[in-house]
Every structure is written in structure tokens, then in C-alpha cells.
């Protein structure tokens, strides 16, 4: 049958402005419209690979030790760089001896104050926080580099510093930054309605000050980079959440074109927001590699990682909320102080106060101050985790004051549209989250369990403990629709193996698996025939950072479009081989079938005929829909046991329901929920960077005195999804879900503790001394 000539689809090259939400905050972007948008995978779509609990495609590498992380990259002749850091919080370097360091056997290079290009911002002579990099030494072994660092004999002179919000905003405070200690245009005020009127209308109010700690990301793989030059091109292996952003950062700092920088990241040991770009260790590795002509590795020791690799900043939140007797919220106000460190951005707690409830009168103000401490970085749900503790604790206390079930109070004030932006949600199953989590938790019958709460084995050991059960809950919203730009290619090789190519990265979230599933589904291929090729800026199309729970809803649609395009081309190629029109064909299990017949060809039979004529599909993430808000929701319920005499809290159970649209892989998504809950448990129960007030130095820069949850600390966790495919958000129906589960855990636990002790708790983590203090009130 003669093939009908067909004009190639005219690529619709239109650029439009769209809104993308990054880390929960809106950004305007000009984006390219895709040449076509596949029909959305609605809830009714019949999918066979997407939605299955398939194991991680790279799990075998991880369990056998074969997965190569950046720390495992060993290049021939590689040197090791050691970074010297300031022991004082503010002041100056008074002396050092670079010559002595260079004279140490094995030392290949020294970067002393003033030696690094200005664009790297490395090694200023003035110190503005303890732990700040001040120099670096590279040598042929770690020991030699460390000996060189000691030989530098750097001396420092301390100066008065301000390491807390209070100190930085006091009259005549030492200057943290030359332009002042407050960010420009403080405070940031956001307001709707009339809070004065709301206060007058309230029958019941709660006014309370809440405090949250500095939380450290504590990824088990520290920040690490390996740099190697070949002529004028540098290759950087980096443990990063954003290979392209590292490329931009290195190119800019070294003053070279981006095309001369290649960034590779295959496996990484966690990021959680702290690894979003090139940093001191990257520049140090690149500079030493250039000057020595040898590959250079630079990594953070654990102490450096816990001192100067980002953090979730502390907050103080002064909250007033009020409601009518029937629970209708009449006002929410919140005023926050946030000490950022020497640098950071405005990821404060305020925005969530405007989004979770349909309260007509809301006002927040946030004041961000620079302090003499290492700068903040985004940390899984930045601002929202902090804000949730204040807002949800206040809501829970309000419920108590109203004599109302906190679940009923939340239902009463459910925001069926986005109350901040006054537009519909693309989808919102928060009420279903409330229902289903409450049902599985046994919320309605919790008082029965209170009575029968038997002591745990541990408490029996401890004798006649006075223990009490407590039950609490909290809810969550997190704006996360993903968005452009994101590109992906799908390539069908001559043996019918299939590559999905995307310049994204898998933090352990499962991006490789999810992209493989989406591409296999769209192409009608076997999952085992598909390989996701990611993590290399040189050969892969651009995608953005893996932050803001964005990777699946950003790269997923691009991968799907690329696969649909590849499928279309494959059918075009197969049609004449099978003597039919492409429209007569369908695909499944890597086989092209003539509809309603038993005639078919495998992909491999088709590609064998094509030889090296490549089937390549290109995909682009289109703009987000206008005039809707895209967010993930959830509710969590906690059961705790409190020893009233010792203040020790054990979390017994967490039930969590979240709505993130379509779930591409429920097994991996469940892992994300559990992991977020456990990090949220750490935030609520244990984690707190402690700084010495007199010196401004971190006292617990390790993994013992900075306590992250152990396996013995985890409760029974029942975490699951409700809701359905969000066909409005994007054509895969998926929203982001990595960050949301962390948000409500700490306030849910705090509410359960408050319930157990019959008091209230206003500060996390819930250490024994804080719990005893709350009991004594």
C-alpha cells in the first residue's frame, strides 16, 4: 500500500509566559510551547506500567554496592583537597604561612586568602561565620593535605558577632553584612481581608508564640566534587540536585562558557535541599585541578557538612487566630522572625497561613535577618514545615478552647479554592485525606485506647511509669505543580532497546524508575527494555533542579511526550511493513499490533529493518494551566506515649493520607511518604543545631549529638494516597510529593503530646526538658 504523503506537523514555535512554582513560591517564566500536548492520562486512563509497584530500576546496583556515588569517583592521579575553616564567628585572619604549607611533602597546591578568582567568592579575608572556608590545600593524600593545612598555621582575631535574630536586630548590633542585618524591604507583609474586624468577630482566640529550631539536612553523603580538566574543558562529578545549575555556577565562577563545563552525577547519598548548586568545594576542586593538571577531589568532612552545608533556619512565630463559636475562623495573624545565617532567601513560614484554611482575614509579616552563622538552604518543604508547626499548633489549641474536635474544626474551614490566590485548585482531596486517615487511625474511638493504653515493654522495665497516651493531628498544603523548562528525548536503538534521555537527577526519590515507567507506558514498551539515562550535562537535554517536589511533574510530561513522539514515528515506520495505516496500529509489551487482528511485529523486528535509522522522540514540558493553583495536600494523625515523670515521649503510630494526584509508582511514593514523616519526626522530636551563645560556634556538628531518628525511633507508620489523577495539572496527572509528608508530622506529634499532658507545647524539638516544662505549667 502506498504511503500517503504527509506534511510534517508544523512545529508550533510559540513562546508564552507561564507561572512555575519552585519550592512553593511562584516564578514567572517565558517558555516554549510544545509542538503537541498528549491527551491527559485521566483517572479513567487504562495504564499498565504507570501506577504499578515496580521495584526501583537501579535497586540492584544499590544493594550490591556497585552503585557509584560521587564519593566513589577515583580518577587516576587524583589529589585530595582539604578546606580550612574559621573557628571564629566574626573577625579577620591575622596571619598564615602558605609557603610552609607548600613545603609539606605531598602538597601540590595552596589556595590562600586572596588567591581565588573573585567570582568564586572564596576565601574573603574577613570572617562572617564560624566554619567559613578560609583556605584550601591539595595534596596526594588526605593526610598530606591535612598536614599542609596545619602548616598554614592560620591565626584569627575574633570580633563581636550576632548569631541570633535578637542579637542581629539589637541597637548597635555588629554588622553581619555591610548593607545591614535585615534583608531589604522588611518585613514582608501579606494580607487579605480585615484582621481587626476578624478579631472583633471572634468568640474565641488563641495567641501564642511558637519556636522552631535550626534543622540540618545531614545527608549521609557529604557535599563532594571531583574536577578534572582536559584542555580548556572541565568535567565535574558532583553530588548534586541540579547538574545544570552546577554547570552554570562553575562557568560563571571560572569565567568560562557553559559548553566547557560538563557535570556528571549518577548516584547521590541524599540532598534534601542542601545540594542545589556549585559551592566552595566545587570551586576548590576545579581551581586546584586547573592549577595542578591533576584530577582533584574535595569533600566535606562530617563536621563541615553539619557546620556549613545549609540548614533550615529557626523561626519565632507569634500567632493569633480566632473563630466563632461554631468554629468558623475569623482571623489568622502571624508575625515571624527568621535568622537566615549570612545568606539565604525568603522561604519563610508565612505563606502556608494563607493557603490551608478558608479564613477571610489573614495577615502575616516576616522579618528575615542576617546573622553570623552559616547560610540557610532550602530544606524539604522550606517555610511550610516551620509554618505548619505554628499554624497547626494554634488550630489544635483553638479546637481545645472551642471544645471542638480538631478534625471538625479543620473540616469547617476547608478551603475549597485557593484562598490566597482566589482561584480553584487543580485538584484537592484534603477532605478525603481527613476522612480516610481518621478512619484508619480510629480517631473517633481514640478515647477508648487512651483508657487501655498499656505500658510499652521498655516502660515496664522502667518500673511503675506514669504514662499517658495522646492523640493529635495536623494538615498540610504544598504548592507543587512542577513546570517548564524540561526536555526529554526517547531513542529507540537498532536492537529495540530504548533510552529515555533527560538531564535530571535521581536523589533517591526514584526519578530513574518513574521516567522509565512513564516512557514505557507511553511507548507501549516493556519496562525492562527502557533505560533512563540521566545525570550528565554534556549529552542530555536540559531539566531543572530536583527541588520543590518538581521532578516527576516537570520531567515526567516531557518524557511522556518524547515517548509519544517516538511511538508515532515507530508506527509510521511499522505501518508499511505491516501493510496498514499507522492509525490501525497499537503498541504493548514492545510489540506493534494491527488492531483487531493477530498480526504484529516486535519492536526488535521493526528496528532490525530500520537498522541505524533512529527513532528519536523529543519532549517538552508545556506551560502550566492558567488560573488554577496546583498543590499537594495531606493529613496526618499521631499517637504518642508520654512519661509524665521523665518527659520522654515515644511516638507509637502515624497514619498519613496524602493527595498528590496520580501516583506513578505507589511503592516508591510510599517510601517518600515514610521518609518525609521520619524526617518530620526528627524535626519534631530530636533535631536541633545547638550553637554556643558566647562563641557562635556549632556545638553538635556530628551525627551523634545532632540526633537524627534511628530505626528504634520510628513508630508504626501507615502512609497512603487518596485522590485521583490530576489531569488539569499536566497530562501525566501527577503532582509532586517528596516534600509534603514532612510538613504536618511535627505539629501532629506536638498535638498528641499536648493531648497527653493536658497542656500545650510551643517549641520543637520536644525534648524531655521542654515536655517536663510544659507539664509543670
Amino acid at each position, binding site marked *: 500500500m502506498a504511503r500517503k504523503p504527509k506534511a510534517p506537523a508544523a512545529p508550533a514555535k510559540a513562546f508564552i509566559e507561564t507561572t512555575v512554582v519552585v519550592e512553593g513560591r511562584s516564578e514567572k517564566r517565558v517558555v516554549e510551547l510544545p509542538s503537541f500536548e498528549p491527551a491527559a492520562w485521566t483517572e479513567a486512563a487504562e495504564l499498565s506500567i504507570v501506577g504499578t509497584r515496580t*521495584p*526501583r530500576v*537501579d*535497586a*540492584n*546496583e*544499590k*544493594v*550490591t*554496592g*556497585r*552503585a*557509584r*556515588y560521587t*564519593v*566513589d569517583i*577515583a580518577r587516576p592521579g587524583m589529589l585530595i583537597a582539604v578546606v580550612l575553616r574559621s573557628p571564629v564567628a566574626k573577625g579577620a585572619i591575622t596571619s598564615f604561612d602558605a609557603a610552609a604549607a607548600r613545603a609539606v611533602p605531598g602538597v601540590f597546591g595552596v589556595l590562600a586568602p586572596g588567591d581565588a578568582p573573585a567570582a568564586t567568592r572564596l576565601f574573603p579575608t574577613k570572617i562572617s561565620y564560624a566554619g567559613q572556608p578560609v583556605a584550601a590545600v591539595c595534596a596526594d593524600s588526605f*593526610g598530606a593535605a591535612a598536614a599542609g593545612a596545619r602548616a598554614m598555621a592560620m591565626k584569627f582575631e575574633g570580633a563581636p558577632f550576632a548569631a541570633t535574630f535578637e542579637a542581629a536586630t539589637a541597637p548597635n548590633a555588629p554588622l553581619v553584612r555591610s548593607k545591614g542585618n535585615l534583608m531589604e524591604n522588611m518585613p514582608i507583609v501579606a494580607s487579605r481581608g480585615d484582621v481587626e474586624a476578624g478579631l472583633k468577630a471572634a468568640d474565641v482566640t488563641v495567641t501564642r508564640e511558637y519556636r522552631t529550631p535550626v534543622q540540618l539536612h*545531614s*545527608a*549521609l*553523603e*557529604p557535599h563532594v566534587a571531583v574536577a578534572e580538566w582536559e584542555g580548556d574543558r572541565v568535567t565535574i562529578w558532583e553530588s548534586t540536585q541540579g547538574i545544570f545549575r552546577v554547570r552554570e555556577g562553575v562557568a560563571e565562577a571560572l569565567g568560562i562558557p557553559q559548553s566547557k563545563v560538563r557535570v556528571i552525577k549518577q*548516584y*547521590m*547519598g*541524599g540532598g*534534601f535541599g542542601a545540594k542545589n548548586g556549585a559551592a566552595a568545594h566545587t570551586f576548590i576542586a576545579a581551581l586546584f585541578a586547573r592549577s595542578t593538571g591533576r584530577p582533584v577531589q574535595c*569533600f566535606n*568532612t*562530617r563536621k563541615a557538612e553539619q557546620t556549613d552545608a545549609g540548614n533550615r533556619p529557626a523561626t519565632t512565630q507569634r500567632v493569633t487566630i480566632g473563630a466563632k463559636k461554631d468554629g468558623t475562623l475569623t482571623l489568622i495573624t502571624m508575625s515571624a522572625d527568621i535568622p537566615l545565617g549570612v545568606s539565604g532567601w525568603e522561604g519563610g513560614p508565612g505563606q502556608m497561613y494563607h493557603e490551608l484554611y478558608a479564613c477571610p482575614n489573614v495577615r502575616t509579616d516576616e522579618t528575615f535577618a542576617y546573622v553570623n552563622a552559616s547560610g540557610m538552604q532550602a530544606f524539604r518543604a522550606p517555610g511550610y514545615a516551620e509554618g505548619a508547626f505554628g499554624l497547626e499548633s494554634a488550630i489544635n489549641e483553638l479546637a481545645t478552647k472551642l471544645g471542638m474536635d480538631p478534625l471538625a474544626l479543620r473540616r469547617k474551614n476547608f478551603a475549597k479554592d485557593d484562598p490566597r490566590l482566589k482561584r480553584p485548585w487543580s485538584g484537592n482531596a484534603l477532605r478525603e485525606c481527613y476522612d480516610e486517615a481518621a478512619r484508619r487511625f480510629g480517631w473517633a474511638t481514640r478515647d477508648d485506647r487512651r483508657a487501655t493504653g498499656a505500658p510499652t*515493654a521498655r516502660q515496664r522495665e522502667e518500673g511503675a511509669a506514669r504514662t499517658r497516651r495522646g492523640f493529635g493531628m495536623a494538615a498540610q498544603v504544598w504548592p507543587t505543580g512542577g513546570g517548564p523548562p524540561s526536555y526529554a528525548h526517547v531513542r529507540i536503538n537498532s536492537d529495540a532497546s530504548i533510552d529515555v534521555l533527560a538531564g535530571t537527577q535521581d*536523589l*533517591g*526519590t*526514584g526519578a530513574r524508575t518513574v521516567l522509565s515507567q512513564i516512557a514505557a507506558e507511553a511507548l507501549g514498551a516493556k519496562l525492562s527494555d527502557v533505560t533512563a539515562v540521566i545525570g550528565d550535562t554534556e549529552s542530555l537535554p536540559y531539566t531543572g533542579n530536583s527541588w520543590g517536589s518538581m521532578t516527576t511533574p516537570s520531567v515526567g510530561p516531557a518524557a511522556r511526550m518524547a515517548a509519544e513522539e517516538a511511538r508515532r514515528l515507530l508506527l509510521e515506520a511499522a505501518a508499511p511493513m505491516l501493510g496498514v495505516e499507522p492509525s490501525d496500529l497499537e503498541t504493548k509489551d514492545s510489540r506493534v499490533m494491527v488492531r483487531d487482528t493477530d498480526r504484529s511485529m516486535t519492536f526488535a523486528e521493526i528496528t532490525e529493518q530500520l537498522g541505524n535509522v533512529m527513532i528519536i522522540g523529543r519532549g517538552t514540558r508545556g506551560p502550566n494551566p492558567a488560573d488554577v493553583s496546583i498543590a499537594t495536600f495531606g493529613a496526618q494523625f499521631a499517637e504518642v506515649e508520654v512519661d509524665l515523670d521523665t518527659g520522654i515521649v515515644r511516638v507509637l503510630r502515624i497514619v498519613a493520607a496524602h493527595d498528590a494526584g496520580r501516583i506513578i509508582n505507589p*511503592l*516508591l511514593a*510510599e*517510601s*517518600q511518604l*515514610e*521518609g*518525609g*514523616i*521520619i*524526617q518530620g519526626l526528627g524535626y519534631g522530636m530530636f533535631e536541633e543545631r545547638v550553637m554556643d551563645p558566647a562563641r557562635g560556634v556549632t556545638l553538635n556538628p*556530628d*551525627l*551523634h549529638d545532632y540526633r*537524627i*531518628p*534511628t*530505626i*528504634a525511633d*520510628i513508630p508504626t*507508620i501507615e502512609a497512603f494516597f487518596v485522590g485521583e489523577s490530576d489531569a488539569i495539572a499536566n497530562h501525566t496527572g501527577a503532582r509532586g510529593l517528596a516534600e509534603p509528608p514532612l510538613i504536618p508530622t511535627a505539629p501532629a506529634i506536638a498535638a498528641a503530646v499536648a493531648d497527653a499532658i493536658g497542656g500545650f507545647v510551643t517549641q520543637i524539638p520536644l525534648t524531655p526538658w521542654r515536655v517536663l516544662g510544659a507539664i509543670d505549667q
Partner: protein
Amino acid sequence: MELTVNGRKHHISPAAGDRLLNVLRDELHLTGAKYGCGHGECGTCTVLVNGALTYSCITLVEGCEGATITTVEGLADGATMSALQQAFVAHDAAQCGYCTPGQLVAATKLLEQNPKPDDAAIKAGMSGNLCRCGTYPKIISAIQAVARGEFRGA
């Protein structure tokens, strides 16, 4: 000095103060065990030395003369993964996977000592291996599945 690692004999000449972790990684190119803290606080470097659970980052290699050492690379028998490795895959007990080699070594030791551990025994036995991604529930379910005999491995 001589070490037997994963059944293979190696002659090494450690420098004074060398830690077992560095010798395994840098000289024997067994990079499964990882640096996480260097102070025996996180468990990413866990290996077995003469059958004993060991943080290799705070183990002087000179004290291991003649020792038999098992790392994550030694858990599989050729292409056949151990039951625990298979269960970790099936139960998604590795997210980023960085702590996984240490977790698997610890779990292997746990089941050797107690083939049918209850939840409390699993939590006690695995308590020296931190996981920042929070895969703990999946680690527990993977170990339970092996204890129930659901996986047959090397």
C-alpha cells in the same frame, strides 16, 4: 600483612594509622562501604571483621592482620544476590542507597544471630545504622520477609 576480604586473600602494606574503610575503598576498590561520619556514628561503613559487626571508619587496619572481612560486595554469590539483597530490592528498602551497604551487612549479622527476629529485635539489631531518607519501615519489612523465608538467596 594479609587480609581475607570476601573470600579473597590480599597482601597490603598499610601506613600507620590507616583505617580499614580507607584500605577497603582506596586499595581494594571495594567502594560499597561508605564514609558518612568518620566517627562511628552513622554506620555507612559497616563491615564484618571475623564475623563481628564493625564500623570500618574507626578500625585500625593494623589490628586486622589475618582477619576475615565481609563487605556488601561479598554478600552475593556471583550473580545470585543474597535473600536480604533480594528482599531489599522487592521492598524498596533503599532510597538513595548510600547507607544500604551498611544496612545489609548489619541485617546479615542480625539474621545470623537471630533468624526469626521480632520487630523489637530488628530495631535493636539495626539501631547502629542511620538512614536519612527514612527507609526504616521498608528495611523492617524486608528483614521480616527474609525471616519468613520468602526469599532464597546466595
